[in-house]
């Protein structure tokens, strides 16, 4: 893969700026990442970072509508909140780049705090909560798995929040406090990718963001999750057709060197149609009709999760046994299988970076973790993983006493 080139710069107020020039189409993408996410929330006010993200679109000090002026110059935008960050991104025709600076700098300067906006976005977010998590079969499985997996770390709640009532209780005062405590130039990275020049971007950044004051951040040290001592199991019974099994193992955070071997293991397990779990559980033994492993690339120690649904006539014990067998098989991974997931990582990286937005996000995430080079180091790190690494991380992390399992039982269990 070609190296992604970029230039970087920092304003006196602490705002970090990265630029990657790409001129094949007349488009620019602006990515503004704030280093605040659900992990920074008060346990009694969960879901707040995400609610706040919605409020960022309700107008700022000098610009009553964020969306309209952007749409008028042919641009579009969106945002997302994770447990670690809140990320805003816009794409627009390259000759309209300054509009993005105008809009983003004004909402970093000061929001238009209004009770009416807050009330409306609360009800929008409550409907989002229902739509995504509560009104779907198995939709709350990960909401239930998290507090089993984490006992003290704030990853124990999801970005949407622990419960609807926390969102209902948010006040305008909370909104202001959050804004001044986290939405600061010294807590953000601005990335511009596309048909522009680094010099142009640096000048625009100085012009529009230069006079925004540094702020005193509310950041506090987060509790560290103690090592797990024994397997945890929880069972719930709901109106669903099949038994769902949701399993999680603790793994280190994104910057830990073991991350790459662990992530490749999820590919060996369930990446593509040749994934070992899919082949064994779905195709050969037909114990499950769906099984998927993910590694969660959290900033703090995260998880590998393994979600499956058991086919009728089969039991949890059969499923667990089959999963264990596959893990043992992966311990003895062949050179060919290892090469296969590495090749897949290479083509995925090529595909990912066909999108300017993904390049912008990749640079911003690396920078927020203190290493913008991460975007170029990731693929080589995958390619260096050895069979010995795979064996070591499986026996270190993917072991029963490091796991939490949620059994999601139907009312009419067989």
């Amino acid at each position: 893969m070609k190296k992604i080139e970029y230039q970087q710069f920092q304003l006196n107020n602490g705002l970090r700026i990265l630029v990657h020039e790409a001129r094949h189409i007349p488009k620019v993408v602006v990515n503004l990442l704030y280093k605040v996410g659900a992990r920074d929330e008060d346990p009694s006010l969960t879901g707040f970072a995400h609610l706040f993200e919605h409020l960022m679109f309700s107008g700022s000090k000098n610009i009553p509508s964020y969306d309209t002026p952007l749409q008028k110059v042919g641009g579009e935008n969106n945002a997302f909140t994770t447990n670690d960050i809140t990320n805003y991104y816009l794409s627009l025709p390259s000759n309209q780049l300054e509009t993005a600076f105008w809009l983003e700098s004004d909402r970093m300067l000061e929001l238009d705090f209004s009770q009416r906006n807050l009330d409306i976005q609360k009800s929008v977010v409550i409907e989002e909560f229902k739509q995504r998590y509560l009104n779907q079969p198995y939709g709350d499985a990960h909401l239930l798995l998290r507090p089993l997996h984490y006992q003290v770390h704030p990853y124990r709640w999801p970005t949407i929040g622990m419960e609807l009532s926390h969102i209902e209780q948010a006040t305008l005062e909370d909104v202001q406090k959050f804004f001044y405590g986290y939405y600061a130039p010294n807590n953000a990275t601005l990335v511009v990718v596309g048909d522009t020049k680094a010099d142009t971007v640096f000048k625009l950044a100085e012009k529009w963001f230069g006079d925004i004051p540094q702020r005193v951040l509310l950041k506090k040290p987060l509790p560290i999750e103690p090592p797990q001592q024994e397997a945890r199991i929880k069972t719930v019974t709901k109106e669903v057709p099949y038994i769902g099994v949701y399993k999680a193992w603790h793994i280190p955070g994104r910057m830990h060197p073991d991350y790459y071997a662990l992530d490749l293991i999820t590919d060996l397990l369930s990446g593509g149609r040749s994934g070992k779990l899919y082949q064994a559980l779905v195709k050969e033994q037909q114990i499950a009709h769906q099984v998927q492993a993910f590694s969660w690339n959290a900033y703090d120690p995260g998880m590998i999760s393994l979600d499956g649904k058991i086919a009728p006539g089969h039991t949890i014990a059969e499923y667990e046994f089959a999963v264990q067998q596959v893990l043992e098989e992966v311990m003895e991974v062949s050179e060919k299988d290892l090469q296969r997931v590495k090749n897949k990582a290479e083509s995925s990286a090529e595909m990912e970076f066909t999108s300017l937005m993904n390049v912008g996000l990749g640079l911003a995430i690396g920078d927020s973790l203190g290493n913008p080079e991460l975007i170029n180091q990731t693929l080589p790190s995958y390619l260096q993983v050895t069979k010995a690494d795979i064996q070591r991380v499986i026996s270190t992390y993917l072991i029963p006493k490091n796991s939490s399992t949620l059994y999601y039982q139907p009312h009419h269990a067989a």
Partner: protein
Amino acid sequence: MQLDRSTPPSAGPLPAPNFPAIQRYKLSNGLPVYCISFGTEDLVELQFNYAAGHSRESQTGLANLTSRMMIEGTRSYDSLALSEMLDFYGASIDIESGFESTTFSLTSLTKHLTPSLELLEEILFGPTFQEHEFKIYIQRSLQQLEVEEQKTTYIARKNFSRHLFGADHPYGRFTGKSEIIQIRLPQLVQYYAEYFAQGPQFILACGRFDTEVLLDGLEHYFGKNIYSGKNIPSAAQSSMVLSAAGIHEYPIKDTLQSTIRAGHLAIPRNHADFNRLQLVNLIFGGYFGSRLMKNIREEKGYTYGIGSSLTGLRYSGYLGISTDVANEYIAPVKHEIIFEMQRMQRELVSREELDTARNYFLGILLSRRETLFQIGEIVRNALSNELEFSDIDKAFRELPKMTPEDIQTLARKYFHPEQLVWVIAGKSGALTPTSTPNSFTSN
């Protein structure tokens, strides 16, 4: 100098569209190959397009299942070996089977294209349709659909087209549980022989590649097979549409939200008014700044999202509106949808609202030409809807001329609130039932 933050920076005109060149070639058997050189990554996407889909099947689901079973074993490789080899080269094959066509898309690193082509040739010309694989596939699909059946969005989607086009129309078809259960393996073998064995209608290549090398590879694997080139007629061309206006409720127990899908017939993709009507739809409900979104989400907070879209098919089309709402908001949301449709017909849009929507629309058209996949999809849609390539940029010529009067005229011509088909999945009884659904027919 104090910075003026309340005035937007001066905006120039949108950049001119520059769609990449499309080269047309033919293999020695006559099979057309379209090549588009695009992108900065060493990737290529090849699309093989077949005239197979709901409009060319005697039983719902045949095209879909046949195409999916084609990757489950071939003359030289079983299903696992195929998957492992494709994954080994970092390649992937996606299958899309719709109303009018079925497409196999191979994505590969350019350097690994040749071995992937060999596998694709096996899949397209040597599938073996094993009973064992078929059983597993059917069983797994049924179990997955059992979970889908609990989702309001799925139930609404499944029933919407049937009420909109009528159960006997190809565009009214949906491959659900009851359709899958009825399909037998010999039917797939038969379907393959009729619709796939004679080769694709065309191949479309997009990405970074040496054209000569690519054409040599395609010639080697696909230039010697039979290519009939015959046009297989679509049943959608001659079927009667029977649209059932009114309310159709699908109760689902213990649901917190209901899905509303509403719509009525509109125009096919190649209709002269299509691009212009897309702009009307955009103002009505087609983007974040639309009237539906502003009224129903941003002013009232009834939903996380609501949107409308204009779908242009080869022989028909429809305006569709879709949202998930709390049960208590079903009636008010329906009321607001009709109100906003009528407002598009009653009042002229302001110049400001028109300019914003048009610039947004054209800006997005430019912006979504970024990846080889997006370019490939635009060209495939043009080919399957029989549009001229010069029409790909037609919106850039047509939309700047549009006036508020044009928007109103089109809304009056094509919006018909009284003809809306309403499908509500979730809570029933929220709406006053209309006596009997009215039917609208057309060809």
